[in-house]
């Protein structure tokens, strides 16, 4: 397993210029989307952007640092509630809630990461699973329900576009989320392609060797938790603004499980995988529902298993393998390893 992940973490060997051009084209297409599709589809795509930020964050922890989390829905909930409470109770403008959500989740995630340091594999799975299950119950707790709205949740208003921009609310929110996502992906990219990323991978693959080389494992592992939670919290805030409502039922354990599913389906330790995974968790349940009202989950389960059969290392992994094959056929560049 380690070797496969190591392979998928290897930087792609495509030339930088064509890659940048590709990115630019992609960016233009994405920016044009809200004018090409309906408001409803724009809203769905906004959710895809939001989920992709979560998956990137979870990937930092699970993919790059090898720590499993079955409870990231909890951080998503914290981010969402912080945004909702600030907007609803304190009249804070929506855009100002994003950094607050991120910062708070960074702290909470880091603190949660400290005891989690001693837990590995199954034990960490239990601890995070417990976090995910407990979060809705904590939100309902009577001591804090004057802020959280208890079981009723909080309804918030959708922001209007600023400066009299000729956009509708959905289009504006799409661009707003896209801008935040761009910042988060840029952050994630720099983090993962640099020294920190190498340290995280080293800890995942060779913890003892990493320690010997002077990497502070404990520090990095907690930090990975914190940063991962921060990404998720930012996304949670965006999600709350997009959906205009938060309630304990919005953050059930199934949300956390979808996130994990998204990371794996998208591609472990892959930045682009976050987008594939987000598309999957946004659209595949809808497709399953279209196929069968009687047992939509059964169809969804078949999709999950089917994806893992066809692409055991995720969509991003499969694409990478496909490119490598094409290139080998073309015989253009020699095989590079790792």
């Amino acid at each position, binding site marked *: 397993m380690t070797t496969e992940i190591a392979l998928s973490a290897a930087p792609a060997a495509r030339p930088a210029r064509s890659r940048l051009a590709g990115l630019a084209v992609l960016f233009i297409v994405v920016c044009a989307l809200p004018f090409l599709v309906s408001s409803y589809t724009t809203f769905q795509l906004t959710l895809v952007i939001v989920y992709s930020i979560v998956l990137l964050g979870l990937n930092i922890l699970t993919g790059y640092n090898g720590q499993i989390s079955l409870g990231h829905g909890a951080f998503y909930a914290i981010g969402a509630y912080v945004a909702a409470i600030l907007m609803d109770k304190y009249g804070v403008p929506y855009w100002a809630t994003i950094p607050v959500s991120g910062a708070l989740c960074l702290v909470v995630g880091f603190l949660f990461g400290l005891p989690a340091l001693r837990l590995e594999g199954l034990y960490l*799975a*239990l601890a995070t699973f417990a976090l995910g299950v407990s979060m809705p119950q904590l939100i309902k707790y009577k001591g804090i329900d004057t802020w959280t709205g208890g079981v009723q949740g909080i309804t918030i208003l959708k922001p209007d576009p600023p400066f009299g921009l000729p956009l509708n609310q959905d289009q504006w929110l799409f661009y707003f989320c896209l801008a935040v996502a761009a910042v988060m992906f840029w952050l994630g990219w720099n983090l993962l392609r640099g020294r920190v990323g190498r340290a995280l991978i080293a800890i995942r693959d060779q913890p003892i060797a990493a320690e010997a080389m002077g990497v502070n494992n404990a520090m990095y592992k907690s930090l990975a938790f914190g940063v991962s939670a921060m990404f998720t919290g930012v996304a949670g805030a965006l999600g709350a603004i997009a959906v205009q409502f938060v309630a304990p039922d919005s953050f059930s354990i199934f949300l956390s499980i979808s996130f994990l599913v998204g990371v794996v389906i998208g591609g472990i330790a892959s930045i682009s995988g976050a987008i594939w995974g987000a598309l999957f968790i946004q659209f595949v349940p809808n497709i399953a529902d279209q196929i069968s009202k009687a047992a939509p989950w059964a169809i969804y389960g078949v999709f999950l298993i089917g994806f893992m059969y066809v692409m055991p290392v995720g969509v991003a992994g499969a694409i990478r393998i496909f490119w490598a094959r094409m290139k080998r056929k073309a015989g253009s560049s020699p095989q590079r390893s790792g």
Partner: protein
Amino acid sequence: METFLHQVIAGLATGGIYASVALALVMIYQATHHVNFAQGEIAMFSTYIAWSLIQAGMPYWVAFFLTIVIAFVLGVLVERIIVRPVEQAPVLSVVVVFIGLLVIFNSLAGWIYTYTIKTFPSPFPEKPPFGTHLVSSHEIGAVGVTLVVLALLYSFFRFTPLGLAMRAAAQNPESSRLVGIRVGWMLALGWGLASAIGAIAGMMVAPIVFLDPNMMSGILLYAFAAALVGGIDNPGGAVLGGFIVGVLENVLGAYVIGNDLKLSVALVLIIGVLVIRPSGLFGRVHVTRV
């Protein structure tokens, strides 16, 4: 004081439920080194099979043993057909397949049997034992069955060559092949046995909580916690872990923090224990020289 005692006994009874499911988790872990998240749903589904057999007029014990056999075959088939193709895939991909199985079994059960709760018969007398109201005969009987399964499981792993081979296959597949163990079949067998144990657990749990497709979804987390707190490689520890979790949860809920936070606090305590003793209260500490 009497209420306190009563709470503890009720906790032991619920703990018995966790223990029985925890045993199935220990079984599959020993045999495959995975924790199968679909374990609870397969147990639930097997219980529906037993229910159908009983509805069809089969005597309880015939249905009971037939269900164990069916569950065993079901487990083997699931491993051979569904899990096999991803054997070589990264562990997280396997986890996703487990999640897929979980939702499939849950959904199928709802589709076939609807979501209305069903009563599942108990093989034990209706009359409470020893003239007490504190605990029902079924609860005592279920704990008894769990202990019997525990004894069988313990002996199986400890004293039979097959049990040893299964542990070996889970731990070190390559070396296992080199001593002639058919590793693929050991995994399938492990799935079969785990699902058979799950079926027993399901049939013991259902009379208490009623049979419905979501019967196991709440229990799985507790069973998982019980198995880990007791030591995932120690069947006896897992059963004790089940009782500990059951009692802890009741006492916390009734006397310390109230019912709305009892799950969270119980889990925090369990995780605390695991931070201090990473291999569980009764798990073996593994030392490996590099």
